[in-house]
């Protein structure tokens, strides 16, 4: 498994190695899986009760499929760890957080101060997504 640089959970990190989506269905005792950009996150929905860690790989930060994968899992009720791995950069952290990621294992370490600033900069948001924040329209209308 990869070590998270940033983690926003209180439970113990899962030590299991993350296996591919293809293998996950067959390995009935597996609890950790890694999604590649071309995988369909919905293939995991039958197994949410035994899933504890989902790694979503970003081979290049410009490939945004992992954002949809994250939201789909959270929308389906997945409550385990959702970890962004690979080409994870400071300026994508906030959007990832909003899509439901709660841990980050960048291949190149992030400047802690820059990461902190990126994650705390936005007081409000326009959309309702997987992070549970109240959208601006919600605040306007209660």
């Amino acid at each position, binding site marked *: 498994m990869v070590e998270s640089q940033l983690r926003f959970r209180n439970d113990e990190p899962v030590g299991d190695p993350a296996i591919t989506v293809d293998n996950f269905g067959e390995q009935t005792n597996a609890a950790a899986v890694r999604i590649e*950009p071309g995988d*369909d996150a919905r293939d995991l929905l039958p197994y949410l009760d035994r899933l504890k860690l989902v790694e979503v790989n970003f081979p290049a*930060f*410009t*490939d*945004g*499929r992992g*954002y*949809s994968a994250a*939201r789909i899992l959270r*929308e389906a009720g997945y409550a385990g760890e959702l970890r962004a791995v690979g080409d994870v*950069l*400071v*300026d*994508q952290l*906030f*959007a*990832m957080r*909003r*899509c439901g990621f709660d841990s980050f294992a960048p291949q190149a370490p992030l*400047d802690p101060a*820059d990461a902190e*600033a990126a994650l705390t*900069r*936005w*007081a*409000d*948001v*326009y*959309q*309702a*997504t997987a992070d549970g924040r109240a*959208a*601006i*329209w919600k*605040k*306007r*209308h209660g």
Partner: protein
Amino acid sequence: MYKYDSYDQAMVDTRVAEFRDQTRRRIAGHLTEDQFKPLRLMNGLYLQLHAYMLRVAIPYGTLNSAQMRVLGDIADKYDRGYGHFTTRQNIQYNWIKLDEAPDILADLASVEMHAIQTSGNCIRNISSDQYAGAAADEIVDPRPYAELLRQWSSFHPEFVTLPRKFKIAVIASDTDRAAMRLHDIGIQIVRNMAGELGCAFYVGGGMGRTPMIAPLIRDFVPLDQLITYSEACLRVYNRYGRRDNKYKARIKILVHEIGKEEYSRQVEAEFAHLLTQGIEPPIAELERIVPFFADPAYDLTAPDAIDRSDPLFALWYDRNCHAHKQPGYSIVTISLKPVGGIPGDAPADQIRLMADLARDFSFDELRVTHAQNIVLPHVRKADLYDVWQQLDAAGLGTANLDGIGDIIACPGLDYCSLANARSIPLAQKISERFAAPEKQAAIGELKLKISGCINACGHHHAGHIGILGVDKKGVENYQLSLGGCEGADTSLGKITGPGFDEDGIVDAVEKSTEVYLSQRKDGERFLDTYRRIGMEPFKEAIYAKEPVNG
């Protein structure tokens, strides 16, 4: 028009701070150019041939006089004294220094403006009908829906790195003045049989190297599901749009490859799921936005008569003024296409004059059109002569709306690093060839559009006459196409045959107009004649060998 509340203002202010920090980290070397590029693009900052270009968002093309004045001031303060209005109803500045870009954004934020998502692989600035709120034929003002979509699409966290750029247009009349079906998503506000308002969704249109007219995906989405349905359209695209080839990455290719039935089936499934997720703003949010676009306090006694005793004014009135829904008022289009000029360019003084005229004569409102002109949407007919005199004195009185001199052109090889050929000098030559007002008047409506490369920013596919610049073994070469059209009867132009050099293409355009003038029947526009008689007569004239004397 829409006014920011404290939330909207905080969003653009935060964006300024964020971009300032990103620029600082880039200059300090903490970000590589590859890492910085998508960030600056999401703020409209391109690296062009000679300098940075900054593209400022003008949501649905509407702005007030204070905003327009700041656009003029920015041209003076940070650029070379002019700005360029674009086919996306935006303005761009071509000579920007990177370290000053955050200051420009701060100036913009001071008048509720920004450059958010005017570039990059994200949802771009929402465009709309430039006559919205003033046109006699609209069923409702489309801009409140565009504003709702603006907020939804700003910093949408799931859609920050789409396969490719994504453009949305919203209209609300059967006459399509926004090239709606040539967008990634075109939305037409319609009424159903029960008289309720809703949205018809057209998905997968676009220009570029593979032009496509968007098919209808769903004929009626209720207003209180507009955001949810849009999100479903985007999610299917984000997941399944092609990322292996940037030339096949637009949603039009996805819709074309899997078919509109399969695409819409996937959207419906995603839509059904997302309806359970509570992502739709309440209808109260739309009701909050709608009154910002209420009619201005029209003078109900404004006279409808026009004094046509000045023939130059009468010519301008006939060409550049459009019927307004309110008796006694006109919609004025200011042409930014003077003979020999650069289409869409305006010096700072002209920008500020247009701001003053909007303040004094048009309830403080202006519009930018996708044809790169400026609209004063609500002018009393009794004031038109005064307005025209002021425009004319400033070089803004050109009477050529929708005529052959009203050319759309991309920046081309004079500025753009993607271009294969120059567009601007060609537009200048053509407008000079047809400079005589009687020549233009005889030809009437003829939309001529020039792109300097296959990306088609100059909309050449949709031109009655379209010109595409290509690189032919290191020499600029221009392809001619005929019969393109945006609007309710959208069609794509067809190439006439072999291309031309710069002088040859101007001749070919002129020969095309001669064929039209000799073949037209009563009341036919160029496009109508072309559609009736087809390509052959034009080809014969354009490619005829010159007769040899003796």
